[in-house]
C-alpha cells in the first residue's frame, strides 16, 4: 500500500505544494462538511502543544470526523515504559489516521514506517513541523497572489527556529530572495546557507532592522528571540530590543507587505501593530485550519477533484 504519511514537506514537488494549496483554498471557501463522516482521527501529543492540537482537532471535527487521543503524555502507557512502536500499533487498530506530536526527532518518520495507517507529523522535536510550513505557504500565497519571486524577510531566531528552516526549504521551487536578520548567536546556520547556494536561492544578510531595510519586503516573518537560547545573557540583554518590530518601522513598507508570525508572540511585535493593515498573524493562524484540513484529506487519499465535487458541504 502506498504510504500517504506526511513527515516533511521538504521533499514535496512544486506541483504537490500547489495541489495542497488548492485543496486548502476549497476548505477556506467551505470549511464545514461531512467529508470525513465515519472516520476516526487520532491525535497523539507526546509533547503538549495546545495550539497545534486544537487546530488539527478542529480541522477533523469540521469535516465530520470523530477524534480520539491524548493531549498530555503523562496519561499514557509511555510513562510505564511502553515503546512508541507499541503505542502506534495499538492506536492504528482504532483510528484511520494518526496526527502525532513528539519530543524526539525522527519520531514521525519512524512511526510512518511501522504504522499501517497514515501518520501526519505535527512536530518532532527540533526537526520538522510540516503543517506549520503548509499554513505559512498558504498565507503567503493568499496575501501575495503568488509564491513566485518574493522577497521574504526572516527575523529573530534563525538558528533554532524550525519554522524558518522548513519555509526556506519549501520555497526553493519559487525563486525567492531571503533576507536574514538575526543576532549573531542566533544567525542562520551555515548548512542552510549551503542549502540556499545548492538550490540557487538568493539570500541577503542584514545587520540593521529598520524602516529602510523593511521597505523591500513582501513578507516579514517574525520569530521569538528567547532568552534561554543565549549562552551569554549579557549578549541577550544587548540585542533583545534590536529585533522588536515597532509601528514607525512600517513607514516605508510596501502596501502589500504582510507581517507573519508562527505564534505565540511574546513581545517581538508591538501591540500597536495589531490594528495595522500589514499585520496578518492572526489570519495566518486561522489558515492553519484550512491547511490541516487539506493535509488530513490528502493523507487519507481524498483527491482535490473529490473535494471540488463534494456534496457534503454544510451551510
Amino acid at each position, binding site marked *: 500500500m502506498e504510504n500517504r504519511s506526511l513527515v516533511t514537506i521538504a521533499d514535496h514537488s512544486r506541483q504537490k505544494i500547489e495541489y495542497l494549496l488548492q485543496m486548502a483554498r476549497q476548505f477556506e471557501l467551505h470549511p464545514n462538511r461531512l467529508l470525513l463522516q465515519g472516520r476516526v482521527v487520532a491525535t497523539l501529543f507526546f509533547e503538549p502543544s495546545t495550539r497545534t492540537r486544537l487546530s488539527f482537532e478542529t480541522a477533523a471535527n469540521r469535516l465530520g470526523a470523530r477524534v480520539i487521543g491524548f493531549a498530555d503524555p503523562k496519561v499514557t502507557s509511555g510513562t510505564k515504559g511502553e*515503546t*512508541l*512502536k507499541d503505542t502506534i500499533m495499538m492506536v492504528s487498530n482504532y483510528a484511520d489516521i494518526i496526527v502525532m506530536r*513528539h*519530543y*524526539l*526527532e*525522527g*519520531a514521525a*518518520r*519512524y512511526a510512518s514506517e511501522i504504522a499501517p495507517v497514515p501518520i501526519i507529523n505535527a512536530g*518532532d*522535536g*527540533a*526537526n520538522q513541523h510540516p503543517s506549520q510550513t503548509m499554513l505559512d505557504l498558504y498565507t503567503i500565497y493568499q496575501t501575495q497572489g503568488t509564491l513566485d519571486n518574493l522577497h521574504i524577510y526572516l527575523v529573530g531566531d534563525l538558528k533554532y527556529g524550525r519554522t524558518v528552516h522548513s519555509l526556506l526549504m519549501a520555497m526553493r521551487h519559487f525563486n525567492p530572495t531571503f533576507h536574514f536578520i538575526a543576532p549573531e548567536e542566533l544567525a542562520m546556520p551555515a*548548512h542552510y546557507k549551503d542549502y540556499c547556494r545548492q538550490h540557487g536561492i538568493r539570500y541577503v544578510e542584514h545587520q540593521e532592522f529598520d524602516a529602510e531595510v523593511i521597505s523591500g519586503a513582501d513578507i516579514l516573518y517574525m520569530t521569538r528571540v528567547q532568552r534561554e537560547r543565549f549562552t551569554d545573557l549579557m549578549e541577550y540583554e544587548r540585542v533583545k530590543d534590536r529585533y522588536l518590530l515597532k509601528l514607525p518601522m512600517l513607514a516605508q513598507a510596501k502596501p502589500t507587505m504582510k507581517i507573519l508570525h508562527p505564534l505565540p508572540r511574546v513581545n517581538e511585535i508591538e501591540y500597536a501593530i495589531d490594528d495595522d493593515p500589514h499585520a496578518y498573524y492572526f489570519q495566518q493562524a486561522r489558515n492553519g485550519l484550512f491547511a490541516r484540513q487539506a493535509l488530513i484529506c490528502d493523507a487519507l487519499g481524498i483527491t482535490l477533484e473529490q473535494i471540488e465535487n463534494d456534496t457534503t458541504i454544510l451551510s
Partner: protein
Amino acid sequence: MKQQQLLVAALENGTVIDHIPCDKVFQVVSLLHLDQNDRDAITIGLNLKSERIGLKGIVKVANKFFTDEELNQLSVITPNVTLITIRDFEVVEKKEVQMPDTLTGIVHCPNPKCICNNEPMRTVFHLERPSGRLRCHYCNTEIATAEAVIEH
C-alpha cells in the same frame, strides 16, 4: 613473508579481508560479528608487513562468503581494505569495499534526542553526495564518515 603467504594460501574456501589498518582489525571483527561465530575457523593477523600500508592486519574466515552488503559496511571504519574470495585454494575474486548509499544498524547517531537512540530499532544513515557525509534517516543529523562511531 613466506609463512604469511602460506597462511593465506592455506584457506581452501572462504574470505580474506586484507590490508586492514592494525588499529581497525578488531572493529572489523566486531562489525562482521565474527566474535559471535563459533563454527568457522577464523584467523586474525596483526602487525604483518605490507608494501602498501607498512604494517597491516588481516582476517581470514574459512567457509564463509559475505554478501556485498555486509562487506561494504566495512567502508565506514576502513575504506581501503581488499576483499578476497577463495574457492578450492584459488583466488576467484579480489575487490575493494565501496561505501553503500544506506547503512543500516552500523553507525551510531550522535543526537541523544533522535528517536533511534530511544527506541529498540536499528539506525539508518544515508551517504550524501557529493559531500561524502552521513545523514541520519530519522533526525537528519549529519556527520563526517571519519567521525562515525560504530553501533554496539
